[in-house]
């Protein structure tokens, strides 16, 4: 009984909010142009789903997020491992990367449009640049802060080279790397919203901007809710990864 309670507890507040929202719309406190009632949003959602339009936008956005994340996070991991493990790579690369890091990814939009035009490449580039740094920094930090005592022990037990890296340094860096991944997975949606307003032909951002032009507040809300749901799903995925890879750590069990 107690467990059931705790499972439902996180949803009490959202449900309560929706009830209050619905009630205030019906009582006429909220104009439907500012905030349509939840029921209208649900109907808009249903209509979009039935017409198939929703899935086209969803698929496009998901694909963009996934490939942008894969490119950015993959490069971040690779370069983080490189600069974290080799001093020479750090002196060669780190200063440059730190300089680029201080430029907000979204400040690059004008330049990106000039370089790539307004097609997919521009969006993927923005996503990849934004996602790169959290993964890079956390990977670098994780490798560097690996417990020296454990490394010394492993060396004195004959481990060196790749086995030392695989069995000691990499697992020690993993919690930090996963923090970077989780942060990036959250960031990718924020970047996607902006990237998709650059002028896209499909995607949740496009759907939302389009709806705004026609004053379809309910569709705008559907788009916002979709982002919320997708963000939550991304968070669940990264939590699942932490639970799996860090199952030795009592903090993640």
């Amino acid at each position, binding site marked *: 009984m107690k467990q059931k309670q705790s499972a439902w507890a996180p949803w009490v507040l959202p449900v309560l909010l929706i009830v209050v929202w619905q009630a205030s719309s019906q009582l006429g406190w909220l104009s439907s142009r500012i905030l349509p009632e939840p029921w209208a949003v649900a109907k808009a959602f249903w209509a979009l789903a039935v017409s198939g339009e929703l899935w086209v936008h969803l698929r496009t956005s998901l694909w963009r997020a996934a490939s942008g994340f894969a490119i950015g996070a993959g490069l971040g991991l690779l370069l983080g491992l490189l600069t974290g493990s080799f001093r020479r790579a750090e002196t060669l690369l780190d200063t440059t990367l730190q300089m680029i890091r201080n430029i907000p990814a979204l400040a690059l939009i004008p330049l990106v449009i000039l370089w790539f035009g307004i097609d997919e490449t521009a969006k993927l580039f923005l996503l990849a640049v934004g996602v790169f740094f959290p993964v890079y920094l956390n990977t670098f930090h994780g490798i560097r802060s690996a417990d020296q005592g454990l490394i010394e*022990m492993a060396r004195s037990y004959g481990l060196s080279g790749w086995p030392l890296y695989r069995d000691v340094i990499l697992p020690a860096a993993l919690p930090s790397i996963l923090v970077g991944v989780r942060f990036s997975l959250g960031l990718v949606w924020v970047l996607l919203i902006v990237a998709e307003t650059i002028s896209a032909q499909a995607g949740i951002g496009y759907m939302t901007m389009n709806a705004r032009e026609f004053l379809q507040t309910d569709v705008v809300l559907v788009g916002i809710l979709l982002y919320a749901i997708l963000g939550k799903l991304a968070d669940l995925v990264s939590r699942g990864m932490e639970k799996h890879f860090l199952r030795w750590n009592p903090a993640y069990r």
Partner: protein
Amino acid sequence: MFVSTALFDTGALPREGATWTSAQPPRRQGVSLELDQVSKSFGKRQVLNDVQLELKPGEFVAIVGRSGCGKSTLLRAIAGLETVDRGSIAVGKGSIAASIRIMFQEARLLPWKTVLDNVAIGLPRALNAAAATLATVGLAERANDWPSELSGGQRQRVALARALLHEPQLLLLDEPLGALDALTRIEMQQLIESLWLARGFTAVLVTHDVQEALALADRVVLIEDGRVTLDLKVDLPRPRASVRGNAAFAALEQRLLSRILNQTPSTSAAIAA
């Protein structure tokens, strides 16, 4: 110095399974250890000053001293984890590299590997032997647990099993029981003594606990200001658990303690000079 990775795989080990505890283990002779005028300084601070020490094969020597006297540095130098400025450290006679293992104050288990995999570190093919060694420290049933699920004493027992799996000829113990509670510490001392008696390796224990030194060692060496200032033979019967607290033990303990406590750093320097 060469810290070898003794290469035993499962096939090379004649002992397997749970009968290991009752069967007579192969008594491998320990190696001798010779330290000749070993000196070491960190910056301007001289940590080790012409340390002269000889151990016969199979001998158990405890190094005691106040904290900061250089005893841990000495042990790390023997293990090859620190380089020395002057002097030589010879482990064993002849050209055959001896197998040296060290136990640290913290267990230093890899938290992402199970207990069994931790014991088998460096010898990943020796899982059967690792399980057998784990049984000798009484933790056979914890093989598949994570280190975070063990108590401090159990973790040190895993670390002991990990060191023993490599059949060390010289085992170095860097205050491995310092963080344990009093009862667990006595249990661990008895375990270490019995394994040492059974296997005959040479052992060097660094400790600040005089009682622990007397409970384990053949000789107690006192280090003050980086020098050996006392080398006391402990002529008590073994196993030491039987004599713990009797008059001879207490007398020796009293003597050592008063020797350490009455010696302020300035007077010891005067004697050394």
